Each structure stands twice: as C-alpha cells, then as structure tokens.
C-alpha cells in the first residue's frame, strides 16, 4: 500500500480537545465506514512518527483527532497543523470493523470518547446511502463539552436513536447519574440479542473490554460483536 500526500484544507473544532481535519488526497480510492488510515509525519531532519486514525466521513477524507496530553502525534494534529500543510497517509485499512450499506440488520454502535469517530462514519454512510437499517448509538463521554459532532447528531435522522452516557458530569436534570457504562445502559439503549444486531464497539481499551463483556452477558453472539481498541485509558 503506497503512501500518498494529504494536504489539509479545513479544520472544524469539535471540542476543546478535539478537531476534525479535512484533507485533500488526490486519487483517494474511497473507503468503507469503519476503516482507518495510517498517518506519517516527517520532521525536517527525516525523523518520522506514524499513528492510525479512523476515517470520520462517508466519502470525504476527514479525521477527528483527540489531543492526548504528552502525545507525539495528536498534539501536532490538534494544535500545530494548518491548512496548506501536508502529511502522508496510506490506507484504507481494515476489513472487519466496517459497515456496508447492503447490510439490512439492526446495528448497535457503542462508542467511548474518540471511539465515536468510525461509528460516525457508519451513521453518515447510512444516511448517504438512504439505508433504512435501524441504528442505535450509545455514546459514552466525560461531559457535555466533550461531544463530537454535536450539531449533526442533534439533527433528526429517522431510524437512528442516539443516547449519551456521561461518565463524569451530565447536563442538569439528566436522569442517568454520571458513570461508566452498565448492563442496564446496553439493555435499555441497545437491541435485544434475539434481533441479532451487528454490534460495533470502539474506544479506549478498558471501555471496549467492559462494553463487549456486557454485550456477551446480554446474550449477543461473540461473532456479532466487532471491536476496535484505540489505546490506553
């Protein structure tokens, strides 16, 4: 798979610590919702660093990056890079954690923090394809300020249900007390196991482990639970 040059054309602030980067990539072959790319940064003395980032949009080349304090690559992508700057990318990568518009089964998306990114690509691909596959999104995040794609997720999208699970601070009057994802969250906000939904779970490792275990406990078949682990915390 060859490296291509990607030129930053636009930036959207998502939260105080995350932003969406829109790149122009000549001859991008297209991708499936859920796939990721490798990004390579090269310093002027030849030093390089590579990391993986999920594709956030259905067709455009967009990444949403969360700044990891003391990180090597994410602070560059969230604070330094400006329109006109270039990085190298290759991909798309991954043929398992993907949703295809031909698939009519109910879908449960469970995202923690920046784990929402590939799930958002699935929501956008569904909308773009005019798919009527019923989707539910359970989005676990620290507090309301950390919400990615806030305006877009507020727009009505028939057949998509969105539930927010706040872990530290919820908006005033929110019925669910802040906390980590629990069995009840998945039992109430997900699909019954006998609907045989395809479940996609993405986020930090601990979150994915916990949510996937709860889905198993609710009777979902292991083969229907697809996971993507982004890293620590």
């Amino acid at each position: 798979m060859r490296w291509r040059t990607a030129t930053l054309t636009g930036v959207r602030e998502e939260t105080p610590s995350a932003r969406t980067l829109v790149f122009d990539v000549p001859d991008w072959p297209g991708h499936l919702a859920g796939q990721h790319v490798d990004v390579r940064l090269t310093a002027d003395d030849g030093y390089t660093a590579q990391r993986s980032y999920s594709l956030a949009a259905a067709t455009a080349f967009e990444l949403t990056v969360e700044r990891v304090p003391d990180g090597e690559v994410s602070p560059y992508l969230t604070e330094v890079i400006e329109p006109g700057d270039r990085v190298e990318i290759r991909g798309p990568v991954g043929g398992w954690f993907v949703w295809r518009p031909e698939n009519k089964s109910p879908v449960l998306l469970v995202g923690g923090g920046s784990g929402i990114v590939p799930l958002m690509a699935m929501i956008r691909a569904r909308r773009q394809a005019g798919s009527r596959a019923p989707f539910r999104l359970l989005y676990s995040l620290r507090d309301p300020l950390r919400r990615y794609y806030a305006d877009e997720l507020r727009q009505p999208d028939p057949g998509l249900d969105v539930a927010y699970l706040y872990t530290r601070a919820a908006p005033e009057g929110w019925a669910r007390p802040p906390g980590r994802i629990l069995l009840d969250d998945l039992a109430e906000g997900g699909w019954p196991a006998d609907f045989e939904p395809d479940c996609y779970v993405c986020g930090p490792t601990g979150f994915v482990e916990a949510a996937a275990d709860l889905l198993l406990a609710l009777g979902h078949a292991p083969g229907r639970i697809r996971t993507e682990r982004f890293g620590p915390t």
Partner: protein
Amino acid sequence: MGIVSRGFRGRRREQDDRLPPGQYLVDDFPVLSAGPTPRVPLDRWEFAIDTEAEVTHRWSWPELMALAQTTPTVDLHCVTKWSKLDTSWQGVSLDTLFEDVETAAEYALVYSYGGYTTNLPLEDLLDGKAWIVHRYDGEELEPRHGGPARLLVPHLYLWKSAKWVRGIRLLDEDWPGFWETAGYHNYGDPWREQRYQGD
C-alpha cells in the same frame, strides 16, 4: 525521505535500535483484538496439533503444565505501531510440543477459542522461535492478553501471536487467517515493515 510536515518535531523518546521502522515504544501493554475477550475454563481447555495426515496430538492443561517450562524475554511489535521491549513470559517451547509430531507440512494455521485464525510458515514456529505461554510478568496470563494461553511468536507482528490459542493445523498449502484475509500482510515481518498486503 518522505514529505516534511511543517512544524513537526517529534518527541524522539524512542531512539532505540531494537525498534523496527514505524514503531514507537510503550510501557503499558495495549490490547488489540477483533471481538470480545473469550473466557476459557481450564478444565475444558485443550491444545492440539493436527497434522496434514490427520493425526491429532492433544494436551490438557495439566499435561501442558507438566512439560518443560521456559521463560523467554522478548520484544513485542504490534502492527498498530506500538512496541514493548523485554517482556517476560513463561510457557512451553513449540519445539517441545512438536517432538513427537511427524510432518512434512510447510504451513501452519493457528486457531483460537473465539474463532480467530492466523497463518505462518511452520519453520517460523520451530527452532526456539515460538512458545505457548501462560504466564506474563510473573502472573497468570490475563484473558484480555490471551489467557489462559496464547501463542508467542515475537519475530513477527503480534497479530501472529494468537491469543486464546487452541491449536495448530499443519497444511501443505498456505491458508490465510483472519487479518491476512482482511488486507494485512501474509508474513508480517516488523523489520521489513510488512504491515499490509503488498508491503
């Protein structure tokens, strides 16, 4: 040299000649797998080697524990870019498990509890290059890192070190496994940066 990204300096904490190209060092132990973590009770656990002549060699958990144990210290390289140096394990060398196995097969398909598979040439499993390990860093191997037992074949990217290992099927022809059919490299040598098909 690749295209320079303006203003990128890098942290360069990872200058180490034990680090393959494109990798960075971590101190923690990240987890990567395609689905939920299977839990395998020890009284139902077994490990098998199935030969191309359809002879099956099996080991129960107590039988595995009764074999000669070794304690390899190895570097791990994950295709998602992290590397972890000097990890210490305990387990049984595949040379020990293959002692009584008659085979002329060239390929191995490793399969796991939970349905995962990965393929590699049989020679990459022999001559002190691979182990079935069940302890990590002095402790029982946690399920999320592949416990009760996983394959450890550290000279290849870590997806070849199948977690929750259940057996090895010996084959005359190469049979691509889970990630190998999903676009990852068939062999996966980190030093040649064989991440994806065509690398």
